[in-house]
């Protein structure tokens, strides 16, 4: 089916033709006819501002994603859906598979990618991971300084008494994630962070077993979650910030989503 477009990467102006005939189903106009019609019409067309050329590209194919995740994978303005541009490719692929296989629940997301192959999901993940787009400005905190300090302490030190590891032990010193599979936690909407930690804590969100993040989230109180989301969403993200690529010696917990994480539960 895709062969009808010509070679990958070819760029073609979308075609137009005359309005349809009433009633019976129509056959689409042949490509050659369309090109001829385009030639005749080209001079008289004043394209609408959003009218861009159609191209056979992965960007074109995944436009279904940008309705919620924002143009080119930046978070949209409604404040909930997470930015996916620049997240580690392995993390994005894991999430797509988690939705497809029932470890994450969001009906809209599940129905979108339900019948796609691993190869295609990987291509989508690679595409969004490779985007390098400026981050939106951080969200001003709405909580007291004390709450923010609690959030920062959990991120930097964790809480040994409750066996909560410091977030930055896994998510990277800069909290921008570690390639290929650990996500950054900065540049995300506060509501989204609250939603995800809550889902993990209540057992709605899962990752591949052993599910290290579920163990951590279950040890967090709702006040911890509030403190974390307040602090994380308030951190500015530097231009072109990227996931770290260092090899982690060992993680504090064993994580099924992170290949060869080597860590063991303390």
């Amino acid at each position, binding site marked *: *089916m*895709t*062969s*009808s*477009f010509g070679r990958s990467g070819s760029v073609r102006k*979308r*075609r*137009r*033709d*005359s*309005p*349809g*005939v*009433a*009633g*019976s*189903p*129509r*056959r*689409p*106009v042949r*490509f050659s006819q369309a090109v001829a019609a385009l030639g005749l019409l080209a001079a008289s067309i004043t394209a*609408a501002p*959003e*009218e*861009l050329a*159609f191209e*056979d590209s*992965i960007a*074109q*194919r*995944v*436009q*279904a*994603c*940008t*309705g*919620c995740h924002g143009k080119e994978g930046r978070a*949209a303005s*409604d404040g909930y*859906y997470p930015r996916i541009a620049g997240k580690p490719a392995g993390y994005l692929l894991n999430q797509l598979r988690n939705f*497809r*296989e*029932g*470890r994450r*629940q*969001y*009906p*809209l997301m599940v*129905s*979108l*990618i*339900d*019948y*796609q*192959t691993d*190869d*295609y999901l990987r*291509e989508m993940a690679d595409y969004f991971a490779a985007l390098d787009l400026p981050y939106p400005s951080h969200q001003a905190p709405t909580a007291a300084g004390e709450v923010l300090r609690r959030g920062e302490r959990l991120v930097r030190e964790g809480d040994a008494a409750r066996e909560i590891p410091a977030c930055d032990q896994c998510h990277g010193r800069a909290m921008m994630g570690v390639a290929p599979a650990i996500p950054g936690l900065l540049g995300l909407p506060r509501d989204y962070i609250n939603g995800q930690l809550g889902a993990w804590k209540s057992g709605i969100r899962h990752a591949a077993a052993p599910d290290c993040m579920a163990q951590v989230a279950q040890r967090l109180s709702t006040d911890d979650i509030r403190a974390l989301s307040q602090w994380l969403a308030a951190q500015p993200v530097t231009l072109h910030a990227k996931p770290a690529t260092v090899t982690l010696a060992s993680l504090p917990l064993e994580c099924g989503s992170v290949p060869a994480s080597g860590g063991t539960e303390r």
Partner: protein
Amino acid sequence: MRRIAIGILIVALMAVGAVYVLNTRDEAPPDAGTAFSVAPEQIARGAYLARAGNCEGCHTARGGMPYAGGRGIDTPFGTVYAPNLTAAAKTGLGEWTPADFWRALHNGRSRDGRLLYPAFPYPNYTHVTRADADALFAYLRSLPAVERANRPHALRFPYDHQIALAVWRALYFRPGTFVPEADRSAEWNRGAYLVQGLGHCNACHSSRNFLGATDGTLDLNGGLIPTQNWYAPSLTSTREAGLAQWDPHEIVGLLKAGVAKRGSVSGPMAAVVARSTQFLSDADLHAMAAYLKALPQSPELPVRNAKSLDATQHAQGAELYRQHCAHCHGDDGVGIPGAYPPLAGNRAVTLEPPANVVRMVLGGGFPPGTAGNPRPYGMPPFVTILGDDDIAAVISYVRDAWGNQGSPVSAFTVGRFRGHHRD
């Protein structure tokens, strides 16, 4: 008085007798202890037939082990949980014989004698031949044993009782055998066997009565799929999804790749293509196409059953279309072949009821990823972008523009479907 009582008693006994007889007709006692041996080609054949019936689709929980069961099938009567079909001894088919399996498929009765709920489409599978049933069983027994306890069904009273099921079966189920029609081609007969039997197409493409029964495997007149709220269009109407005027290669292409020149599959049909029909041989798909093309077509209904849009509504819808849809589907609704389906003259757009077009706009989606179309182009969901009024306006416009003759859709209708996409 006593005479009346005796009369009632006799009628009651006769009814019980009739239900019993109708539930055990054409049932041979399972030949327990029969040695079970299979040839490798029988397993391969069974694997293919399991694809044709999309057994895995229901008998696999999301993210679960294939065929280990656990998926809930929602019905108007409650949820039926598909059981474990792996070779597990305790919870699967490990101790079943080919005769047990045949009785389940042909008579809708389980190994332990319980009647099976027709969410398992044995009103269709009863037409499957014994040889094919044995091949299916050989394949299922070759699967790695996964002990996974079966989840009890969650059905409301009285549907949770075997007696209710027995009455239902007495009313609506008869064991059958597929008898080829001598005056039809071998291809047509093969298509009929697949469509009526393993394909169980009428499980969706027909309407059901208040007890969930269809009018039989020959009825493909379309229907709203209970609880899923997708409309499976009529395969016997040129206004819906009738195929009489389609080129057979186009039909085969749609079932194989999930996309065709005139449109693509979506909703539950995307699952059917992704898990079942894309794996069928060209010969079998052509046979199904031949059968579907030859279905008697129902008489045409009057074109429009509601008023067309007034100028204000038309202009409002046209502006929304220009902003949100024209970029991919074109100013004139012609789409881009292979990527974005045409909306002008697209029957999926003008279907009555409008469930599918509303759900497509709300939820967006990709056609299924198939060997023939591995990297589909997607459509964004508009449930998060537009309100019910705007979605109703743009759909009404699309159903009315470029010669389309669908009735307008109300914001109320859009709202009814919104809940399927957002928790």
